[in-house]
């Protein structure tokens, strides 16, 4: 089975989606264990695949035994497997977290459907990471996006529905742009295979059609990754989605957009093109820098915890893109490292927010007074997540900051250096306010209802992520061993 792992990681959740549907048909309680075991299996498969990738460098798989330029090829290299592991790890934890957390937020008769769509989303994001075919990438992007729209609007109440609809509209527009980009490329070259494209494109680097295609890609992907001026769908979607879904969106769905961006920028178009022929990186990095500052400032202005986290995500996406946009080894490493780091810390924080909502129903920061005593473990996770977001060593947040800042110095980009450092102060402002309310202000009277922590299925994923914030910070060499060659190979042309 080892040689079929690339396709199995995609097929497993696909089968699982419908199995959990059937399981839920037999009895509603079966849907969750099926989904969980499924993602667990898939994660194991991904780990096995990692072993292979570490041994062989690149693992290729031809779907239906068609040879590459004609058939769909699955290609797994270090970047893929790195992103895949992040996505599956977070999906697994979100899935575990969802068992109890969706109880309040989603009507019971929809639970089966929730897990089905959850698994479809996982299938989609997995597909994006393993495919080496640009159209296949688009298809999976759409699968996961559609699943995401559904999940956002799956909660009780109308706000989620509206947010989901807005997300749908923006997402579809972005999909159109990406599709147009793919269409242009196909028209120009007659191939959809990424490696093939990278091979045949260089002589066409001056072609206007290619430039048009590229612009389509950039705009489309910017919407998907919620780059600053195109982020408008994000805050509502993150805020009004059920807590599990918020965690999933901020960690898994956003990362897949970033991954697609990196792939298309560096593996389809090459560094040579994006730097030499169509100098878009400069522009992207400036946008990212603006996103960092604007996201942080907007986050400071928020009173709703989840909305605050959502705006902070806008800023953090900027971090990743800034790292990618500076086009040097150190910054690139920092940007890619931040994909993991942001997933870990933001996942943790959204789960904490969900836990607060689960226990007390409070969403506003002002209401969270004295939570430190009432929910000690949850609050401890919050502290670690928040410190990590601020970038206090030795948490993960610091590690990406270190690389990004060194990269900025290397590139001689003083403004970006200032932005990176200033943003950590800005995030200190809004996270510290939160910590102040949670720990250092006494709650007014006993709030009736829940005291004590959330149930274990919610608590454990949260604590695992909090621990990961520290562990991946202290043992940062583990992800780095995967990333270093990636950054090098992506920048191969320079």
């Amino acid at each position, binding site marked *: 089975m080892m040689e079929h792992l690339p396709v199995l990681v995609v097929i497993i959740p696909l089968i699982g989606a419908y199995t959990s549907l059937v399981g839920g048909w037999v009895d509603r309680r079966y849907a969750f264990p099926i989904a969980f075991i499924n993602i667990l299996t898939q994660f194991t498969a991904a780990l096995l695949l990692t072993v292979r990738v570490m041994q062989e460098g690149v693992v290729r798989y031809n779907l239906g035994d068609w040879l590459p330029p004609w058939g769909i090829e699955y290609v797994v290299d270090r970047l893929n497997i790195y992103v895949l592991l992040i996505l599956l790890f977070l999906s697994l934890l979100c899935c575990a977290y969802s068992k109890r957390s969706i109880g309040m937020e989603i009507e019971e008769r929809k639970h089966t459907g929730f897990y089905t769509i959850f698994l479809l989303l996982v299938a989609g994001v997995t597909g994006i990471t393993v495919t080496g075919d640009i159209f296949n990438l688009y298809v999976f992007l759409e699968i996961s996006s559609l699943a995401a729209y559904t999940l956002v609007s799956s909660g009780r109440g109308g706000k989620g529905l509206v947010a989901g609809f807005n997300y749908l509209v923006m997402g579809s527009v972005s999909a159109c742009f990406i599709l147009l980009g793919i269409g242009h490329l196909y028209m120009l070259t007659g191939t959809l295979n990424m490696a093939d494209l990278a091979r045949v494109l260089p002589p066409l680097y001056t072609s206007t059609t290619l430039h048009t295609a590229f612009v389509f890609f950039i705009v489309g992907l910017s919407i998907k990754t919620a780059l600053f001026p195109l982020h408008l769908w994000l805050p509502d979607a993150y805020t009004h989605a059920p807590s599990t879904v918020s965690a999933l969106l901020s960690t898994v769905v956003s990362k897949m957009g970033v991954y697609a961006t990196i792939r298309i920028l560096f593996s389809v178009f090459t560094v040579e093109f994006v730097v030499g022929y169509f100098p878009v990186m400069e522009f992207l990095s400036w946008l990212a820098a603006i996103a960092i500052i604007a996201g942080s400032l907007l986050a400071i202005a928020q009173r709703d915890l989840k909305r605050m986290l959502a705006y902070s995500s806008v800023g953090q996406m900027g971090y990743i893109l800034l790292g990618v946009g500076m086009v040097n080894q150190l910054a690139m490493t920092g940007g890619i490292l931040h994909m993991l780091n942001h997933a870990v810390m933001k996942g943790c924080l959204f789960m904490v927010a969900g836990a607060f909502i689960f226990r007390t129903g409070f969403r506003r920061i002002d209401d969270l007074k004295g939570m430190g005593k009432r929910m000690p473990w949850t609050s401890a996770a919050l502290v670690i997540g928040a*410190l990590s977001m*601020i970038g*206090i*060593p*030795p948490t993960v947040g610091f*590690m990406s*900051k*270190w*690389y990004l*800042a*060194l990269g900025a*110095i*290397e590139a001689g980009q003083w403004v970006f*250096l200032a932005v990176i*450092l*200033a943003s*950590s*102060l800005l995030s*200190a402002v809004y996270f*510290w306010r939160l910590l*102040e309310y949670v*720990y*250092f*202000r*006494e709650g007014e009277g006993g709030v009736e209802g829940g005291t004590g922590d959330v149930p274990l299925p919610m608590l454990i994923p949260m604590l695992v992520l909090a621990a990961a914030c520290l562990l991946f910070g*202290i043992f*940062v*060499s583990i992800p*780095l061993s995967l990333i270093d060659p990636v950054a090098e190979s992506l920048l191969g042309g320079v």
Partner: protein
Amino acid sequence: MEPLESPVPFIAILVPFCAAALILLSYRRRRLIEAYSLLASILTFALVLILLPRVMEGSEVTWSVLKLLPGANLGLHVDAFGLIFALTSSSLWIVSSLYSIGYMNAHDGHNLARFYAAFAIAIASALAVAMAANLFTLFIFYEILTISTYPLVVHEGTEEAMRAGRKYLAYLLTAGVFLLLSLLFTQHLAGGNEFTSGGILAGHATDFIVRILFLTFLIGFAKAAWMPLHSWLPTAMVAPTPVSALLHAVAVVKAGAFGMMRVICYIFGLELASAAGLNMALILIASVTILVSSFFALAQDNLKRRLAYSTIGQLSYILLGVALLTPQGIAGALLHIPFHAYMKITLFFTAGCILVSTGLENISEMKGIGRRMPLTMGAFTLGAIGVCGFPPLCGFFSKLLLAEGSVEAGAIPVLLVLLSSSVLNAAYFFPIIRTAFLDDPAEELRGRKEAPVLVLIPSLATALLSLLMGLYPAFPFLELATMAVRALAGGP
């Protein structure tokens, strides 16, 4: 002599961290928490003490903890230079643990687990700053120090404490960013950040860049509370007295001053520092801080605030000493770290004693308090005399060395600053002593007795220690300082 590989420094830092974890886990049981805290302090001190003979023999102890990032190791390296600071903070942790227990019992303290845990982490970070083998390690623990002291500053949970906490963080986190910036630049320019005697920057940067870097370092070490970046320190005095005593008189601020010394001696190197004219700038800043803070101190009526301004002035002695760039000056600066710590902690402890037994904070209300609390005020008097720099207390020796250093450097204005500062110190301390002993006790003080034993004993102990250090300055601090200076000069 070859450096010695040994995990002892690492364990010494690990012990308080583990203690913090234990304390947090047993948050319901007050006595247990106190026992953990006390035990950890004794253990830590013992571990640091183990290092002392080795360092005295001239050997250096290193331990590479972890290769965190390429080019940035987490490593420890104990030399005479760092051991001075490490010994100071770990030994004082024992007395302040005792003192905290007494103080918190008397005050009916709340959130004790948080308090003791944060305290332990802060001490561990201060130790790690002292033993850091490179700038990266120093930076990491410098940041942890900032974060871990925040809960202590806002411990009371009042609106005032919150505001103070925000100011504290605003200053120190910003400083942390500047320190990170400096660290990154050092890494970029020199390709490394290990502390090397003689500096690593020489030949890697122009004078202009060195000056800029010096400025960012200086802002980064705002914990040293030089003016005008000092105002967080008096504000942080809302913290409970043990915190003000140990952290804001010893660990935190000294971490700043110590860091600056490390950077000047081991990153810039003395030659580069004098070639780029960095010492002049630092002398100017330190002198201004010494004089201005003394005047500020004169104007304070709140005892803790007056002590805080006094601390600001005394810290700049250290900066001044290192800025002289002469062996005597640096030795004086190094000596001033422990000596000032012992004296100032005495003063803060006694201020706390007064607060505990009478509830008074303002000097003008302390009329005749010395007659009611003779032991407390006796300790205070000893500390005050020492800070002013009069023999036979230990403060005299560090100031003497500093003065010699300034003569050696030919900087006569510095000598004048030192002398006038002593006069000013006397001017703000002696009125307190006079009020305490000579004025008639106020009505409301009638019937008040000495402070509780648990807070009184630490105060007396530190007072006696500062006296003993004054009588026998050689062991161990003077010797260590001489060794450190010799190592810096390149000798064995």
